[in-house]
């Protein structure tokens, strides 16, 4: 029997493919991690400190101020960071950073939308930290994972 020119086996294959690509079937488990240069000294940061750091507040470890680098190379990694670490929307976060910089002085954390530039600055500055997917971090040379920020399923 054929329907619309397709035989039964073909229809079954289509149904299976649809199921596999449906939202309920596909959800990757990904981890967002904090990374730094491999030449950096050992670093321990709590969740609160990490949040303060990326909110533009000074965090000093071993006499060195930690410099946060914001990874906006993909929208997903940036939104996960905002939702899981900052608990704000992008507009509100950037506005808070600007206001804080004007009020308290200092510089806003640098935001990078180019991964090459981000990684180069990260490697050159032993006091710098940023966030990225764990699988990306494991592929990159000369950087090390400080701590896991979040892990969960993403569709």
């Amino acid at each position, binding site marked *: 029997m054929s329907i619309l020119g397709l035989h039964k086996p073909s229809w079954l294959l289509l149904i299976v493919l649809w199921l596999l690509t449906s*939202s*309920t079937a596909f*959800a990757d488990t990904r981890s967002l991690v904090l990374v730094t240069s491999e030449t950096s000294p050992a670093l321990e940061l*709590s*969740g*609160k400190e990490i949040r303060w750091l990326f909110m533009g507040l000074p965090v000093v470890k071993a006499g060195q101020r930690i410099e946060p680098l914001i990874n906006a190379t993909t*929208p*997903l990694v940036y*939104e*996960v960071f*905002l*939702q899981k670490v*900052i*608990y*704000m*929307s*992008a*507009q*509100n976060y950037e506005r808070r950073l600007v206001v804080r910089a004007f009020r308290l002085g200092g510089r806003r954390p640098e935001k990078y939308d180019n991964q090459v530039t981000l990684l180069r600055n990260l490697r050159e500055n032993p006091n710098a930290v940023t966030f990225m997917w764990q699988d990306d971090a494991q592929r990159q040379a000369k950087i090390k994972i400080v701590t896991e920020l979040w892990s*969960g*399923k*993403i*569709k």
Partner: protein
Amino acid sequence: MVWKNKITAVCNSICGTLTGRLVAGMVIIHLLLLPLLVGAVFYLVKEGYETQFIEHLRSTSPLYAQMIRAEDEEPVLVASLDEILLSGQVTFVELETLDNRLIRSSLENSEEAFNEDFFFGQNGDQTYNIEVLVQDADGDPFATLRLGYSEQMTLRHIERTYWNGIVISAGYFILSTLFVVIISIILTRSIRQIGETSQAIAQGELEQTFAVQTNIGEVSQLVDNLERMRMTLLQDRQEIHDREVRIQAIVDNMAEGVISTDEHGVVESINQAAEQIFGYRSDEIIGNNIAMLISESSRVNYDEYVRDYLCSGIAKITCLDALEVMGRRKDGQNFPLEVAVSELTLGGRRVLSGILRDITEQAAQKAQLEHQATHDGLTCLPNRTLCLDRLQQMLARSQRDQLNSALMMLDLNLFKNVNDTYGHHYGDALLKAVAERLQTVTRGSDTVARIGGDEFVILLPGQNDEGAISVAENILDIIRKPFNIMGQSLKIGTSIGIALYPQHGEDESCLMRHADEAMYKAKRQHLGYYLSGSDEKLNNKSV
């Protein structure tokens, strides 16, 4: 194809007007730019709503997590979850402890799988799911709070904004189109007024002013310039009119007639003097050929002149000297006309202009003078000059036609006595009577001339000796009869000498001499007439 032509015609008519072009341009611009603008606004509004929504849930979800305390028992936790669910914006809530124990609200029991969202509208379930770690007093996480925020309200806001935006855009489009139409009508009203006034001026109504009120600088400047131009045209027209009136007055008051024609002779204009000369009104002549004003006798020459002129382009008829032709009046009377023709070029075409003079009086005076120069004033007979001229012509004709001709010379007998007795008045009257009688016995082709005093000459072309003698005898008979001059009966006689051509000479002087000699012989011998060179027996008519 028909529809295509109709659409093309409509487009052409629309784009043919300023209003149409303005509206069409505005429509095109809006059709191009309005979707961009509206789309950009919609995007920004949507982004704003979504960001606001995400901001809210990301900032409130940690607060909800703080409501959960590690030391609470499950009923308390359920109550806390119920409170969270009753907040209105949360549509799903569950708590998962570290030992994977799920605690849910008692108000809702959704079995849908929880997938955390990081973007608005992710997963397409109209619910934004978020997980928050619940921490105890020491800051250590002990559970995960899962919340589901409904996106429907935000979606409804976005949708309502879309529709409002579309309605407002459509209203803006309609209103702007309407405004453009109104503005273009206002704008073009002044231009239309300018056009109407210009059209009236073009039709000769130079008195129409450009009374256009406008605040548009360029149009106002145009109106000022056009008004200045109109005043200049009006001034020029007045000058031209005055000049025309002046020239027309000069032409109309000329004593001579002035007629202008085209190169084919069609009359284009005529002045009052010409009307009076020919007896026509101007409307009776204008448009007709000038040949109607020329007599038949002169028309051949006129036609020849015109033909030569049109063929060669050389205006032979144009000259400084006047020509004499015979004109023809309206009543058919022919009269002598003096014409001086000149040619001019007007607007690239040839125009002939003629100045005409009625020379009837001059011709009559001329004829009178000529008559006086060739005729005897007393008897009106040809005088010696004319007589000799006619004698010449008679001899030439006789020679050509091989004919005889006769010349008679007459002398009146006893004329001196009449003068002496009665005076010159009687003598003059007698001479006039003699002249009349002589003409009664001669033919019309004969010439009776008075060459002096009481001497007469008679030319008889075509006459031989017998004919001449017969005429002589008739003359003798008629002269012999008494003349009644002012109550006096006077009797005279005449002596006639006859000379014949070619017998007695072939030239004037020879014939005259023979005739004169014959006359004297007739007078001496008291003969009535004497034929020159003849026997005396033939001349036996005594007086």
